[in-house]
C-alpha cells in the first residue's frame, strides 16, 4: 500500500504538486491523469525518490520512504517509461536483467527469469533475447520495458505513459495484455497517462489532477457518472456516457436467444422467430453463420434459402467485449441485437440495444 501525505513539490516559483494526499490500495491500478503540467509525472517521481518532495511524506507499507536509501527503494519498485528508456547498447536479455544484476542474482536465475518474462509479455525468448532495442518495433520495445520493470518481481510498479509511443491498434493490444498480466500478478501500480480512454480501461481508481492539486480520486465509473466539479466534467468530455460503456463488460447483459439450423424447416424457423424480427442461424458446431429475417419467411420453403449470411464474424462479439463495442457494432450494422459467441465461436446468446440503453440510464441516475 502506498500513501502520500500532504506532498508538495516546488520548483523555484512554480508549485508542481500542491498538498497532495492519496492512498493506493495493494493490488490496485491507480492512474494519474490531467492536462500537461498538472504534476502527474512529478507525483510519480517523488514516489521512488527520483525527486524529493519539498514537504510531505510518502509511506510504502507504513514505512516512510525517506528512511530508505534511494537506490534500494528503487530496486524494489518497477519503473517503466516510454520505449526510449531501453538501453540501446544492451540486448533485450541484458536490458531485462538490469535490476536482477543490481541485486546480484545468480546467472542461472537471471537467465530463467528473462525467459519467463519474455513469455509473460508474449515474445518468443529464442527470437528476442539477443535482439537490440533498435531491432524492435515500438510495441515490442514497450513490452520489453514492462518486462524489465517486472524483472525482480517488485510489488509496486510505476509507469509513465508506458503505452505512449505506439499506434492506436498496438496500444489497444498492449492494454489488453496489461490487463491480463495485472489480473495474474496483482501488482500495486501507479501509472501516468494523458489518454482518458486508457485510464478508464485500465484503472481501478483514477486520480484527476489540475495545477498540482488532486481534483477527484475515484473509480472510473464514479468519475464518469458523478464528476466532482466542472473541471472534471469538462475533462471527461461530453461523451462520458459512451466512455462509461467501455468499463462495462457484456457478460451480465447476454440473454439467451433462439437459434435455428440450416436444415430446419420453415415451420421450425417460424416457431423460433415468434414475435421477433429475426433469428440467428448456426451450423452443426453451434457457430453462427447468418440470420433469417421475419419478412423473408413467406417467400421460401427451407431455412437455407432465406439466410442472410453477411459477414457474421464482423458482427458477432466475444463474451469479453464491452458494452461500448456492442453499441458500436449495432450502430455500424444497423442492428438492434448482436450475437455473442464463446471462445470457441459458438453462439451463447445475444445482446440488445435496449439493454445497452438501460445500462447507460443506470449510470446517469
Amino acid at each position, binding site marked *: 500500500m502506498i500513501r502520500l501525505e500532504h506532498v508538495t513539490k516546488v520548483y523555484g516559483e512554480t508549485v508542481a504538486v500542491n498538498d497532495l494526499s492519496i492512498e493506493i490500495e495493494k493490488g490496485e491500478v491507480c492512474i494519474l491523469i490531467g492536462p500537461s503540467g498538472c504534476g502527474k509525472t512529478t507525483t510519480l517521481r517523488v514516489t521512488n525518490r527520483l525527486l524529493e518532495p519539498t514537504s510531505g511524506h510518502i509511506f510504502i507499507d507504513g514505512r516512510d520512504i525517506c528512511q530508505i536509501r534511494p*537506490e534500494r527503494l528503487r530496486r524494489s519498485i518497477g519503473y517503466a517509461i516510454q520505449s526510449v528508456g531501453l538501453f540501446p547498447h544492451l540486448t533485450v536479455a541484458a536490458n531485462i536483467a538490469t535490476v536482477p544484476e543490481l541485486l546480484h542474482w545468480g546467472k542461472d536465475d537471471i537467465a530463467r527469469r528473462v525467459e519467463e518474462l519474455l513469455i509473460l509479455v508474449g515474445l518468443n525468448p529464442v527470437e528476442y533475447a539477443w535482439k537490440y532495442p533498435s531491432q524492435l518495433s515500438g510495441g515490442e520495445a514497450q513490452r520489453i520495458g514492462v518486462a524489465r520493470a517486472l524483472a525482480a518481481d517488485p510489488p509496486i510498479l510505476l509507469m509513465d505513459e508506458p503505452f505512449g509511443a505506439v499506434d492506436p491498434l498496438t496500444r489497444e493490444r498492449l492494454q489488453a495484455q496489461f490487463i491480463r498480466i495485472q489480473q495474474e500478478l496483482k501488482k500495486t501500480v501507479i501509472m501516468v497517462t494523458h489518454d482518458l480512454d486508457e485510464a478508464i480501461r485500465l484503472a481501478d481508481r483514477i486520480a484527476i489532477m489540475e495545477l498540482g492539486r488532486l481534483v477527484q480520486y475515484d473509480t472510473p465509473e464514479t468519475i464518469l457518472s458523478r464528476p466532482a466539479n466542472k473541471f472534471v466534467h469538462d475533462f471527461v468530455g461530453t461523451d462520458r456516457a459512451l466512455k462509461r460503456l467501455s468499463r462495462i463488460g457484456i457478460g451480465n447483459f447476454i440473454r439467451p436467444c433462439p437459434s435455428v439450423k440450416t436444415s430446419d424447416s420453415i415451420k421450425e424457423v417460424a416457431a423460433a422467430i415468434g414475435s421477433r424480427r429475426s433469428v440467428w442461424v448456426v451450423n452443426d458446431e453451434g457457430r453462427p453463420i447468418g440470420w433469417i429475417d421475419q419478412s423473408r419467411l413467406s417467400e421460401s420453403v427451407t431455412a437455407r434459402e432465406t439466410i442472410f449470411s453477411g459477414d457474421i464474424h464482423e458482427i458477432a462479439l466475444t463474451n469479453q467485449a464491452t458494452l461500448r463495442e456492442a453499441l458500436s457494432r449495432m450502430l455500424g450494422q444497423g442492428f438492434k441485437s448482436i450475437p455473442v459467441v464463446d471462445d470457441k465461436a459458438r453462439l451463447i446468446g445475444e445482446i440488445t440495444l435496449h439493454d445497452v440503453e438501460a445500462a447507460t440510464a443506470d449510470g446517469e441516475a
Partner: protein
Amino acid sequence: MKEHRMRRWVLLALFSGLFIAVISSTGLWETTLRFLFPQESQVLHPRASLIVLVMEHLSLVAISSSLTILIGLPIGIWVTRPGGRNFLPLVTDLTSFGQTFPPVAVLALAVPMLGFGLPPTIAALFLYGLLPVVRNTIAGLSAVPPGSLETAYGMGMSQWQALFRVEIPLSARIILAGVRTSVVINIGTAMIGAVIGAGGLGSPIIAGLVQDNLAFILEGAIPAAMLAILADQLLANIEGSFAYPGQSP
C-alpha cells in the same frame, strides 16, 4: 558485421607486421635512398638506427597520450557531473586555449622550467592533445539519451553504476574518436621533440632540414606517416568494437 570487423583486425595485424619488417631492414632503406639521392654522401641519419628512432617516437607518444587520456577523461566526466558542472565553461576554454597555443611556444616556455629532453616535450604534447579528448568526452556524455539515464536511476543504479553501465558504454565511440584524433595529432606533433633533444623521428627530419638532405627527411617522414595511419586504424578498430545495432555511425 562481426566478420567485417574481424577482417579489419587481420588487415591491421598484417600491415603492422609489414611496417616492423620495413623499419627494421636498414639495408633496404640504404639501397633505396642511395638510388634516389646518389649525390648525398650519407642517406641514413647517423645518430641512431631507424628502429631506435621509431621506438623513441612511440614512447614519446605513448607517455604523452596516456597522460592526456588519464587526465582528460576524468576531467570530461567530472564537468558533466552535478558537482563539476559549474566548471564546464572554464574547462572547455582552458583546453581550447591549450590547443591554440602552438606546441613550439610551449616548448620555449617549458625548457627554462623543465630543462631539455623528454619532460618539456611531453608537457607540450600533453597540452596539445587534451582538447579532443576532453571535448569528445563532454560531447559523448551529454549525448546520452535522457530516457536511458532516467531509467538507469529509476531502476536503482547509483551514480557510478549509471556512469559505468550506461553513460560510458553509450558514449564510448564518441570518446574514443576524440582519443583517436588526439593520438594521431600527437604522432605528428611529436616531431618537435627533436628540437630540444627528445629524439624520435623528428631527429632525421631536423638534421635533413639543417643539412639540406632530402634523404634524411624522408627517413623520418615516411615511418611517421605510416605510424600515424596504423595508430588511426588501431583506434578505429577499438572504436568499432563498441558499436551496437542501430547506433548512428
